[in-house]
């Protein structure tokens, strides 16, 4: 039996049990991670997981069942169970469920990969982390850590509407960090970002990061931060580096435009959104420099795919155009509720999880400036970069972020290093204050986006570049 045969059997069993629509994801995922600490390998883990998940729609109620087996009998049983769970959902029924059209597709897609990351010898990958973390220690940090992660996912999607799509997506990335410990506090510096940089690429991404070349610098900066002056408290012009702006986009734009949140489907856990569908197309989200796209077609970005997990093809769309909110992240059922005509942003974290609305690549288009130009144009401000903490309310409005490092900016020049830089604000007011944006876009990857119950971890991409925001409150502390 092929994976398509197995999936088809499960779909048919769900239909036979009363479903009016069913789809199945068969997935085979291999995962490898290695971490190093202070010049030694700390942990090597290799996981392999195979199974299928069936989603069934009975009347207007959904059910989902997943099993770790690919036999015909197990697939059929999972299909029947999904339909039975859907029938139970009807005890507390909702409004009629419709699905926006999705052309039945037979297709195959693979992400780009020059060097198979699971094919690179473990010894070489280990040497990379050992060397980098050893260098960090030699340059004065108390704690040196390094990590890489690799996911190799093959999946087969079949729906009762005729979709038959197989995809192979390889993702990997890594990073290093240095921590120095002082009296009563710690300071950390990371490269290239807090958890590293990730993409839908081969090992060539990790090679290109050249971790070892940055080890000494981050070690020295972490020590220097222990005695650097505190970031002053007050309102000032804020320049954010691209890595931090990527997370700002993720938290205050990406999650806010998720249609399931807007519709209240995440109200009890992840939360809702401050956005009101009645304002789609007219609401001023940010300044005219703000152009945000939803684009799963970016080669190598972490949120890229050929088809989402309900068979919709990857399509680039606008989310914010010249500061105006114009698009959402949607699935076929949520789009129908909202009266929209597109889905395309539904993903599942493995075979055992229900597909749900998720970010793909949500990021900024380039601006007209460079970071140097932004600094040169700033008389009095603070430059912050590389995320250290993040918190935002359940409507995605009130946020507070901390960064690893800051610098004074005075009279167009970068000045002293500042420790414990934080900033806080309200999403749309913050974005409307963006008056300079760099063209130096990097598609930052976030491999740890949590959402859903049971919990799912999403992999998202966020093209971002340095930008300046006016009159932002900085230096919040206990």
């Amino acid at each position: 039996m092929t994976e398509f045969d197995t999936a088809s059997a499960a779909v048919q069993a769900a239909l036979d049990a009363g479903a009016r629509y069913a789809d199945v994801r068969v997935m085979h995922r291999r995962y490898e991670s290695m971490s190093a600490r202070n010049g030694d390998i700390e942990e090597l883990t290799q996981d392999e997981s195979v199974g299928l998940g069936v989603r069934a729609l009975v009347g207007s109620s959904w059910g989902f069942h997943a099993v770790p087996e690919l036999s015909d009998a197990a697939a059929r049983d999972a299909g029947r169970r999904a339909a039975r769970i859907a029938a139970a959902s009807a005890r507390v029924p909702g409004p009629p469920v419709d699905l926006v059209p999705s052309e039945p597709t037979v297709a195959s897609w693979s992400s780009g990969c020059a060097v198979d990351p699971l094919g690179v010898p473990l010894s070489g990958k280990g040497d990379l982390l050992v060397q980098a973390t050893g260098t960090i220690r030699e340059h004065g940090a108390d704690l040196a850590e390094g990590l890489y992660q690799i996911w190799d996912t093959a999946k087969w999607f079949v729906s009762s509407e005729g979709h038959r799509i197989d995809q192979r997506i390889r993702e990997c990335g890594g990073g290093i960090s240095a921590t120095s410990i002082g009296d009563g506090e710690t300071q950390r510096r990371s490269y290239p970002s807090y958890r590293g940089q990730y993409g839908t690429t081969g090992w060539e991404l990790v090679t290109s990061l050249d971790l070892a070349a940055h080890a000494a610098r981050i070690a020295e900066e972490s020590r220097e931060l222990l005695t650097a002056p505190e970031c002053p408290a007050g309102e000032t012009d804020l320049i954010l580096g691209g890595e931090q702006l990527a997370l700002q986009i993720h938290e205050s734009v990406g999650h806010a435009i998720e249609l399931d949140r807007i519709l209240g489907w995440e109200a009890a856990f992840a939360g809702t959104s401050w956005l009101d569908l009645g304002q789609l197309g007219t609401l001023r989200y940010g300044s005219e420099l703000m152009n945000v796209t939803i684009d799963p077609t970016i080669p190598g970005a972490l949120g890229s795919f050929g088809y989402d997990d309900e068979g919709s093809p990857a399509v680039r769309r606008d989310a914010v155009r010249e500061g105006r909110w114009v698009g959402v992240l949607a699935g076929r059922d949520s789009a129908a509720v909202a009266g929209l005509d597109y889905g395309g942003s539904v993903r599942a974290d493995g075979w055992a999880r229900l597909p749900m609305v998720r970010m793909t690549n949500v990021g900024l288009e380039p601006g007209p400036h460079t970071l140097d130009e932004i600094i040169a144009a700033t008389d009095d401000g603070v430059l912050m970069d590389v995320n250290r903490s993040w918190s935002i309310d359940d409507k995605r409005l009130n946020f507070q972020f901390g960064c690893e490092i800051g610098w004074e900016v005075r009279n167009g020049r970068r000045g002293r290093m500042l420790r414990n830089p934080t900033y806080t604000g309200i999403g749309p007011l913050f974005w409307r204050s963006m008056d300079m944006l760099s063209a130096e876009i990097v598609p930052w990857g976030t491999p740890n986006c949590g959402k859903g119950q049971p919990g799912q971890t999403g992999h998202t991409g966020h093209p971002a570049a340095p930008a300046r925001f006016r009159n932002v409150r900085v230096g919040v502390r206990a």
Partner: protein
Amino acid sequence: MTELEIAGRVVELIRRLAGPDAQAEAVVTRADLALTRFANSFIHQNVAESGVGVRLRVHVDGRTAAGSGSLVDDDGLRALVERTLAAARLCPPDPAWPGLTPPSPIVASAVFDESTAFAEPDERAARVRDFVDAVGGLEAAGYCRTSYRSGAFANSAGHSALGRTTEAAMDGIARIGGSDGVARHCADRLADLDGAALGARAAAKARAAADPVELPPGRYEVVLEPAAVADLLQNLSWYGFNGKRYAERQSFAEPGAEQFDRSVTLVDDPLHGSAFPYDLEGSPRRALTLVDAGTTRAVAHDRRSGAELGTGSTGHGMIGASTFGPTPRNIRLLAAPASADAAGGGVGAAATGGTAAGGATGGGSVATGVTGAVADPDTAELLADVQRGLLVSDFWYTRVLDPKSLVITGLTRNGVWLVEDGVPTRPVRDFRFTESYPRALGPGAVLGLGRWSVRQPDRIDGVWWEAPPVRLAAWNFTGGASG
């Protein structure tokens, strides 16, 4: 094959392929997890998952590797063993390998309920129906979940263990005009979850939270309800009572030092609720006193961090512990001793198997104040001595600014009320706070503890936090909803 047979087969395969000197441990867990989720007052997601997982760790020729898989037939197990052995041979030496857990007595899991283990989707849906009906026309959202885990451990040192456990949890909000009220409860048995009582409580709090006013940020005396206290316990666990962070000097914890108020006693007590009686390394799990009457006593260790500090394992081996550190995941903040006249009046009597929602329907009526803001007499008693402060239901999106001082920022959620002269007088809009958790619980900072604890579910089944409401002298609110 049973879980123990699978674990034994994996260990035997290692011995056969790598020789008698190879050290190996295998953990096999079967899980049936189901979660019925509702929003806008209807069930919109309803999922179940049956799974089995094998986790293997080997130490061969001084090198260590771990692997896991979901295929438990002969071919799948053999592939897992072969790839893990291959990985170990390519790894650098592991001079800090702590060795395997020797044969040790393991007590049987205390918590297992057949009807919860095999609960039907209709039974979860019925509780959701009760919750939705009880909110009286408000919008309802949340979940009802059941979990059943059965597992076995075996290692090449001759140690083995068995466990099985069940858990049920319900977590829901009621919504009116942008104001939410919450009720949640984690229990050993599905039969202990009362959807109607939880819904009624959530609705009463939501109505009491309507039309909030904005107050200026600053330091306020607070009474934190158990859901908010659970957040303190989680962060203290992850950053403070974490043996790896302690060894790296990244934790505030100083065993032997009086770091907390004398009313604070924290015990990690996995066998008090649903949890396996052994950890990922086969070490017995048992109650561990972390803080005794204000004095820090211990942090959690797996075999590796315990060996590094010479203390031994405390039964906290877990996935990712080598990287993130071993952490307690079943912490109880012990309640104040119950007075004779308070007996039976509690609402979150998790220790006695009672419902967490009784206050909404039973002895939880409050004579004065905003109707419904105070969920139970236990909280009312704590509020009685507050001249001016805030009653906080829940915290949200808390993140650490500095791990060593454990300065955390986050927001309030699901209801805040101004308390004047012992009673809530008006609902308040959500605040952002920035606060050091150990400082907030420090000597002299805890003005009172409730007498009844409520067990709060975590995002992961088997992890829970149990606490009474807590009255604190000050909490540092650094911003309002407007920024």
